[in-house]
């Protein structure tokens, strides 16, 4: 995961991970890897979302220049 994922990509990956965990067909060490990755992605998404919310608030409060 050298390149940073976009929010969209992270969410997509999370969906895939959750699907895999739900099916629970992979070996356990793979499960742990998926779990670790998923947890990281949730935290990353959460952080990004907070950033978005903050940015919207900032932009919304800006006056349109005359």
């Amino acid at each position, binding site marked *: 995961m050298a390149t940073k994922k976009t*929010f969209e990509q992270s*969410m997509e990956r*999370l969906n895939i991970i*959750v699907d895999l*965990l739900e099916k*629970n067909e992979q070996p*356990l060490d793979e*499960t*742990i890897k998926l*779990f670790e990755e*998923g*947890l990281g*992605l*949730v935290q990353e*998404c*959460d952080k990004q*979302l907070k950033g*978005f*919310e903050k940015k*919207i608030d900032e*932009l*919304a409060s800006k006056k*349109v220049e005359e």
Partner: protein
Amino acid sequence: MSQAVVKVSTLVSYLKSKIDQDNYLQRILVSGEISNFVHHRSGHWYFTLKDEASRLSCVMFSSSASRSKYYPKDGDKVILQANTSVFESSGQLQLYVTGIKLDGIGDLHIQFELLKKKLFEEGYFDENHKLEIPKYPMRIGLITGKNTAAREDVVSTLARRWPIADLVEINTLVQGEAASAQIIQAIGKMEKEEVDVLLLVRGGGSIEDLWAFNDEALAKCIYHCTIPIITGVGHEIDTTIVDYVSDLRAPTPTGACEIATPDQEDVKQNLALLKQALIKQCRSDVEFERAQVNRFKNMTWFISPGTLVDQRKMKLDYISNRLQIVSYSSQKKRIELEQVSQNFKSLVSKKLHQVGLEVQTKAQFINQNVMQRFDRENKKLGSMIHLLDAYSPLNVLKRGYSITSNSKGICTSVKQVQVGDELTVRLTDGELITKVNRKESRHGN
């Protein structure tokens, strides 16, 4: 007679007020021929307007007369712009003239209609060919006369409505012989300037004044122009050929500019609304994503990851349980197998034993049988040998007989032997190798 009697002045005054108030009789255009023209020293013009059937007296006060480009003379056919009223002193109906011009337009009207028909039939007015006017033009071309009211109207309208746009201006003649050629050239330049929309405007005037805008070459140039063109030539009532061929016709120069531009106040208001909507949309988008993320956050594994392993543990337990069952059943199978093999073994050994006994009895029986037979045969053989012994040539040889043989076998006749043959003579204890010297046959045998 109970009817009221009125004074003449009252009646005339009443008539005058009636006529003055009738809008259909004010600011009207009347055509006719001039007669009895008088230019009074006060500056006022007095004359009679007549046609084949009627006549009316007219007055044009010096204030209007002094501004007229046309100076009337008896016999001229003219068009007047006038108000109708009553001259109270004489009680006479009169036209108060505010404008006058020669009625020479008949020809031009016919030309106009002919050109319009021709261009229409050739498809130059086709609605499908008209270009769309851009909503937010940032570069507006303006072709009009230098220092004209029309130009001022456009410039001030643009400043009020849409000052953000660049104005590219080309001034041309807008009247007279050279005007249309100049306008054609200007349109060509505007195409190179890459303006978003082009305004071609001129203030009001007579049909002669506006005649440059009824030019066929100009109409075709506008038709082929790649920039959308809005025309605003003259006032509402004036229509020229370029109005038909242009992409949009405005009633006035101001109107042309209004059509070409959005009102900045509207745009600002709209922007504010869009901004609100945008923020709202953004927030709801983020809220939606927030819900998604929270869904993940609240998933069992992320809250208590142990469940991931628990499931495995359960699976392991299940499998080991199964294994136990399997090993138990295999043990059972083994015991069964051992039992079966035991049974098999004992069965087999019993059978073997039985078969062994049988074999033994049979062998004994065979043995006995064979021995008996052997004995019998042996005895038979002994007697045979005995007999054979009695007949044996060896015994004969013992008694002095011999056996003579040559290379062909035993000789029983002298005929089988030639003189000089080598003969073997067998005696009981050896052989003699002899040579025949002489042969003597014994007859009678």
